[in-house]
């Protein structure tokens, strides 16, 4: 029972990351009709926003260490600590959550520039060419990051207060030993919040209505005198922000390195396809579903039964879904069924 609950949480956690990336992918595909292989790179850029912010906050100066009296010892002390004392230290501690505020404008800008500069010229080209050019872009972004941050994963710890584990076992009246890291729970809640707000934005605002109409029939919306192109550019920015935020919050769970985007990209494509191309609800549902499936498949009971299943389960599911239900779990009829 405990193990199952833990795996369920693990799965939801993984699934949340998949769902967030897949949500952005679907938005872009549904509105712009572009298959964006650089979307994983946006996720990675988000994680590196957190890294950069942390680096900026901890810019240090060499000072004499007064605690060592035998000789003059030096230590690195962040400026923030010198200027603000304990408040400064607390700010450094909260680097990751605070970097969200930096990540939103940065990711929005990156998204808009990407759409205006590159993606826009590929609306009319074939899907293969879209895949290729965004694949090239992903390589470029990845290598730029590697140039500045090196090839090794960079640990970006969560704030101290949530670095321990939550005793979810005792909350639910189960075993005391059942604990789960706070940060992962926060991540889950955060993802749920973002997903809800994206849906609320699309369902409740006029802008969202136009976007949904545009996903349904772009030409018709254009005929009604609405500048669809402009709206879609903003949608691309929005998708970049969603991917970026997912990356920021994922940084304490998985120390970011330059190729984490590629790893997540393949998975989230699989998620999009399983959910159904162009279906937002499908992307989210499939994200959580596949995340949970993957973490259950990695239980020892199951890997002993079918060795290697944890490595391939997602892809296996994708292959089966693609072959038996061409438009995915929740895809609209007639959209990309070929």
């Amino acid at each position, binding site marked *: 029972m405990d193990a199952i609950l833990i795996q369920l949480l693990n799965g939801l956690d993984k699934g949340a990351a998949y769902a967030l990336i897949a949500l952005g992918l679907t938005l872009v595909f549904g509105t712009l009709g572009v298959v964006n292989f650089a979307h994983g790179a946006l996720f990675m850029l988000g994680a590196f926003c957190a890294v950069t912010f942390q680096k900026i906050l901890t810019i240090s100066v060499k000072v004499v260490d007064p605690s060592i009296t035998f000789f003059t010892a030096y230590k690195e002390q962040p400026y923030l600590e010198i200027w603000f004392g304990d408040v400064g230290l607390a700010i450094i501690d909260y680097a990751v959550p605070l970097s969200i505020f930096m990540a939103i404008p940065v990711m929005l800008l990156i998204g808009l520039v990407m759409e205006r500069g590159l993606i826009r010229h590929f609306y009319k080209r074939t899907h293969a060419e879209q895949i290729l050019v965004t*694949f090239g*872009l992903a*390589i470029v972004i990845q290598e730029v990051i590697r140039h500045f941050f090196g090839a090794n994963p960079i640990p970006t710890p969560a704030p101290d207060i949530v670095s321990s584990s939550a005793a979810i076992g005792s909350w639910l009246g189960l075993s005391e030993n059942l604990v789960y890291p706070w940060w992962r729970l926060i991540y889950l809640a955060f993802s749920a919040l973002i997903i809800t707000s994206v849906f609320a934005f699309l369902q409740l605002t006029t802008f969202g209505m136009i976007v949904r109409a545009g996903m349904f029939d772009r030409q018709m919306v254009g005929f009604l005198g609405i500048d669809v192109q402009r709206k879609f550019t903003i949608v691309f920015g929005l998708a970049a922000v969603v991917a970026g935020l997912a990356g920021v919050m994922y940084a304490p769970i998985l120390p970011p390195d330059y190729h984490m985007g590629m790893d997540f990209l393949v998975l989230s494509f699989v998620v999009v396809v399983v959910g159904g191309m162009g279906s937002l609800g499908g992307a989210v549902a499939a994200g959580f579903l596949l995340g949970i499936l993957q973490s259950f498949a990695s239980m020892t009971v199951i890997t002993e039964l079918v060795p290697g299943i944890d490595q391939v389960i997602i892809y296996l599911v994708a292959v089966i879904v693609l072959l038996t239900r061409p438009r995915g779990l929740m895809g609209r009829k007639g959209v990309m069924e070929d």
Partner: protein
Amino acid sequence: MILEKKRSDLVTMILFSMVVLSMPIWLNPLGANYPDLLQKFAIFGIFAIGYNILFGLTGYLSFGHAIFLGVGSYTAVWSFKLLSMNVIPAVISSVILAGIVAAFVGFVSLRRSGIYFSILTLAFAQMFYNLAYSVLTPITNGETGLQLALEDPRVIDRLFSTAGEGLPSTELFGLSMSGYSGFYFCAVMLIVAFYVSLKIFNSPFGLKLKAIKSNQHRMKYTGYNTRPYLLTAFIISGMFAGLAGALMAVTDPLAGAERMQWTASGEVVLMTILGGVGTLYGPLLGVVIIKYLENIFSAVNEAVLQTFFDFLPSWLQDTMVVIVSPFVGEGWHLTLGLMFMGIVIFLPGGITEGFQKMKKRFFTKENSESSNQEGK
């Protein structure tokens, strides 16, 4: 007419063979005439030619061809371990096994087309890659990679001679497959592969593949079942990839799972596109350019750059070094990515198309001028 065609094929093949076999001579001035690089040209040439048969002719973008490369390599190394150090059984078994795996992957993936096909092959690539690292470790030796060992049985070799001391090297009936002899073996394979590709391009089969690319629906309406043709193309290109993988193992008998990662398939897509998709020579051109540049760029470091920009005044020299250094050495992949994007954006048909455009521009100019004169 047919005779003429045959003759022109013969001429092409003779010219092609001469160019390939004389590579050590004419690449000398470029500083690319050492066997290691030449072998890479030939091996990746085969890989790209094979890939082009699928992507170039039918337009199906596969990200799964690294699987067959990996399968080829593993099979070849196992053949060296179990059967013989002779390369013939290794090459044959690799090609056959890669073909079988390709038949399986292709049979499933080709049920869908377009982007779904790409994603299906991507999923298969990830599956094989993950399996090679986890469950298939007894076969693939996991992260260490599959290597030769002294205690390998080598059944066929043992029939003729006792085991010598030290690790044996790959050979073709006594001819060691390292250095130039290795290159010539790869080159001969390349010529064979090119011949097959030439034949396919000029055959009714090739024509059908091109028809599938231009309009699959119309093709179906005219009564053709397109899937068998696609599957055949997929298997052939998979076998080419298997051959390339086997030759990698022949020139350097070890195999690792990183060869099967989907980004490795991305590399061959890149080569094919750079040279020119769907053209006979384009992929080869792309391979030579990319592998040559890779060889040069990754060897360059700051000291080399300093001497390269020596002719400039010293302040300009330093700035140039700072500007250029992110793009060389470790940063080679950055250059590659930029080059790739540039090609897809501005020249989707690759370098071959670039040549044709230039040619056309010059010719049409002359024509219009002459017609103007006639008008007067």
